[in-house]
């Protein structure tokens, strides 16, 4: 750190930083960290208060005390009596799981064709994919609802799952961006070895794109897990098929002012995705970066 205090009159001696500048830099660094720490506390506070409230008794949650006394862990069991959370959880898991599988099976080939194969009309199709990605879902929602109602699928999770089996625009976009970064030489080498086009796709490109596949699958699963508009629209009338987000949104309206139970349910809903985040943090950050920088 304290390198060569020897005075050098040469022009390149700018290494030696004047004391005033050094002090200023130190102050700036301290200020930076202070602001960051303050913001970090503010960002964590909601979680802390949600957890604390989830551990309160009903009476206490109605008071202005912030610290639970005693810790009331049974809230987490009670919420299962108040609402069929387990059932909502299964529904949510089915929706998210089936949607993700379908998305992968249908979107990978499309992204491959849009990035690694040359054909007429490819650019036009890619622009159409971008357009479907950018338009609000509400634009087509009325006819879709009518269509699924004619198929007698309203009240089930199928209207949420089925479209994912026909390619998801965001996933296609993301996968394409990643496939483009894979050099063609690998595929060409496989072709020289006599691999068919299908094998080239599955065994060379897809294998090299594994991190992107993981990220896209995570995004898709999370989108479905967190989705509210779709489940509200299609399963709203049939409580048996509610997902966690719909069930939780109604929870508070059904159980007036019991913030402790509401927060316990909220925590149970958040916990799996937060656990997932910590388990796959690297994939997330890389995936998000892919959307913004390369995409």
């Amino acid at each position: 750190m304290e390198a060569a205090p020897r005075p050098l009159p040469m022009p390149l001696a700018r290494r030696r930083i004047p004391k005033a500048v050094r002090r200023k830099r130190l102050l700036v660094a301290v200020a930076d960290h202070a602001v960051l720490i303050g913001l970090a506390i503010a960002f964590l506070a909601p979680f802390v208060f949600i957890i604390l409230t989830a551990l309160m008794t009903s009476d206490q949650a109605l008071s202005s005390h912030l610290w639970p006394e005693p810790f009331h862990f049974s809230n987490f069991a009670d919420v299962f009596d108040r609402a069929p959370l387990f059932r909502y959880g299964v529904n949510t898991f089915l929706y998210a799981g089936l949607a993700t599988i379908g998305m992968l099976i249908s979107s990978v080939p499309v992204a491959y064709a849009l990035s690694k194969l040359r054909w007429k009309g490819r650019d036009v199709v890619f622009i159409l994919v971008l357009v479907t990605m950018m338009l609000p879902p509400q634009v087509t929602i009325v006819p879709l609802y009518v269509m699924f109602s004619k198929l007698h699928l309203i009240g089930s999770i199928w209207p949420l799952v089925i479209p994912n089996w026909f390619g998801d625009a965001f996933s296609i976009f993301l996968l394409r961006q990643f496939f483009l970064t894979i050099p063609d030489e690998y595929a060409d080498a496989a072709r020289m070895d006599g691999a068919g086009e299908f094998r080239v796709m599955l065994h060379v490109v897809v294998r090299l794109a594994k991190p992107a596949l993981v990220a896209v699958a995570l995004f898709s699963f999370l989108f479905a897990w967190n989705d509210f508009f779709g489940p509200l629209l299609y399963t709203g009338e049939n409580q048996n098929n509610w997902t966690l987000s719909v069930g939780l949104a109604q929870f508070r309206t059904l159980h007036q002012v019991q913030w402790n139970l509401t927060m316990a349910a909220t925590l149970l809903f958040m916990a799996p995705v937060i656990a997932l985040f910590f388990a796959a943090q690297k994939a997330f950050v890389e995936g998000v970066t892919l959307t913004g920088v390369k995409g």
Partner: protein
Amino acid sequence: MSTAVAGGAVGTPAAPTPDRLRARRKAAWRRRRFVLLLMSPWLVGFAIFFGYPLIYSVYLSFTHYDLLSAPRWVGLANYRFLFGADQQVWPAVYNTLWMIVIAVPLQVLFAFSVALMITRARLGVGFFRTVFYLPTMAPAVAATLGFVFLFNPATGPVNTILGAIGIQGPLWFQSPSLSKPSLTLLGIWGVGNTMIIFLAALLDVPKHLYESAELDGAGWWQRMRWVTLPTISPVILFAVVIGVIEGLQYFTEGYVASTVAAGGAGGGAGDATNNLGYPQDSTLFYPLLLYQQGFRYFNMGYASAMAVMLLVVSLAVTVVILRRSDRFVHYAGAMR
């Protein structure tokens, strides 16, 4: 079978024999069939779940339709009602515009500032990144519920803490003038994705640019103005664009905040629909009104007219974005 099938790498362009021509045409045809096979899921999905609903939506917007009886042609009546008589449309448009014009820039600015501070931090970079990203993981419904609780005027921790230091806390989600700012705070809490993107972009700014700027005697602001901002401008544009797109479809937070806050104010459990936009339509966003008209009142013709207007606006935004996409979409690898 043939080795000249794939890859587009054609051998020597010597005078082709008819045999060769046929083989080549066969190969081209096979390649096209393969593309078609790969694209088929999307083609079918695009037609059924996008193209057809889009066209049918336009047709329905000229009809009266309640799902039970067949659509009845009413000409421009829905549009006349939309632009003239409906008392709720303009508040809804105003609220949606408010989120796009005020909340989105604030969120982008916040994300940028945090990312900038993290790049300059020496200690705990990983910790800060995780903390600021974490709220993004909270499902929208859960995050909104949490915030309505945190800011509830009676027992919420925010007003409790404000009270402890002698400030009378406001009504937050139950106040018509503060409900949207409260939702903005919620948005800022969930700004992690944008922050991560800014962080990556800031770390990508070539170091030597800063060094040469410094040699030229550029101060902090000049380096920011002439090096950082120009280099990451595509990312700023991207963040704003994403914000606008999300602003146009802003639904979940508004729905949950209004229905839950209304319940807490003693509005009674009852039918949540009546509470959409609570308080006083201040959180009635355009997609919420569309949902209410279409799927609560089953005015599906009218909801379609609303959808068509949303389509027109979003298409305009999309066209602007795509025409400038070369500015912010960086195509890695060779692309034409």
